[in-house]
């Protein structure tokens, strides 16, 4: 009974029984090529990570200085000798603001990237590889953020990566637009 039901469903799904065709054997062993590409990728990734860390540190300093200059100085709460919390609370304000604004910026960028992703059609291989690498890096930063959620360094890296992704999509949209316009 069950067998015949399954059989009927298979018949509907594959009426010409194409699934009965045998698998095709690959001609060559491509593992050496794949391994080389992966090793290259790992090296490049390590280098990119180091470069991003340096860039992120620079961006964080710039952002922090910018915020410090533009924000009105928060007058520290009157320090009471009896209150040990008050003495540590005041200096954190700018750090917290930096973190909050980075998180907000990251959310904005993520929404932007999401919108672009639905609008962009097929991408050329080189852009696709770059997109995959960027998404890979975002995923990695996300993983690291799950361990250190308050790291300004990691949040700035995330913002920078999303900015690059958004630029990539924008370029593709521009290309799509020109292609459509030329038709």
């Amino acid at each position, binding site marked *: 009974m069950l067998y015949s039901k399954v059989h009927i469903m298979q018949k509907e*799904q*594959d*009426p*010409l*029984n*194409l*699934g*009965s*065709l*045998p*698998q*095709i*054997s*690959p*001609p*060559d062993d*491509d*593992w050496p*090529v*794949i*391994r080389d*590409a*992966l*090793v290259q*990728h*790992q090296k490049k990734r390590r280098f990119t990570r180091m470069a991003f860390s340096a860039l992120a540190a620079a961006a964080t300093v710039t952002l922090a200085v910018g915020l410090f200059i533009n924000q009105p100085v928060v007058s520290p709460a009157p320090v009471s000798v009896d209150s040990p919390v008050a003495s540590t609370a005041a200096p954190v304000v700018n750090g917290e603001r930096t973190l909050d604004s980075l998180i907000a910026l990251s959310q904005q960028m993520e929404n932007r990237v999401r919108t672009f992703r639905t609008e962009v*059609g*097929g991408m050329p*291989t080189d852009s*696709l590889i770059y997109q*995959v*690498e960027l*998404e*890979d890096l975002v*995923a*990695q930063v996300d*993983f690291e953020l799950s361990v250190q959620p308050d790291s300004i360094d990691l949040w700035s890296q995330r913002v920078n990566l999303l900015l690059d992704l958004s630029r990539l999509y924008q370029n593709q949209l521009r290309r799509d637009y020109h292609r459509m316009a030329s038709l």
Partner: protein
Amino acid sequence: MAKTPFDIELDELTLARARRGNMDACEQIYRLYRQPAYSVACRVCSCRELAQEVTQEAFITAFRKLGQFRGDSPFWGWLRRVVVNHSISSLRKSPKADPVELKDHHASSEASADRIGLAMDLESALSVLAPEDRAIVWLHDVEGYNHQEIAGLFGKTESFSKTRLSRARSKLRDLLDAPSAMGLAQSALAN
């Protein structure tokens, strides 16, 4: 019941090692899924050279993005999606690929003469179809993709997928019912 790539056993330890970039684990996964991946690419692209390139690229992408595989579904389902995405992308770039040659299929088959004959007829009929039609009928009928998924892959509407599937099936039926017509069509293709 015939074994499918979904039945291939991949242990968690190998997967975890591959996620961390261990090359031995990646090689192990490659060797397990090399044939089904190439086979799907070959069916969708209808060209052996292109399928080989696609399989390479798909494995590279899969190993790079392995961290995104959550492990809550069979690994082959995830890998197959990567292979199919790469195949469709290549098909869109070079839609006029050479059909898969039949002689290799002959050599690999160990079934009875009748089954070989039927398989040959099917292969011949498939090779006459337009590349997009062939890819659609294969993805729907064999790989179990639905119209929404196929439409998404081709960047078209569901009705595009339905129309092309119906057209492809009807053409395949005609070709299988009239082998002489298939011979004519094939010789026309060869010329």
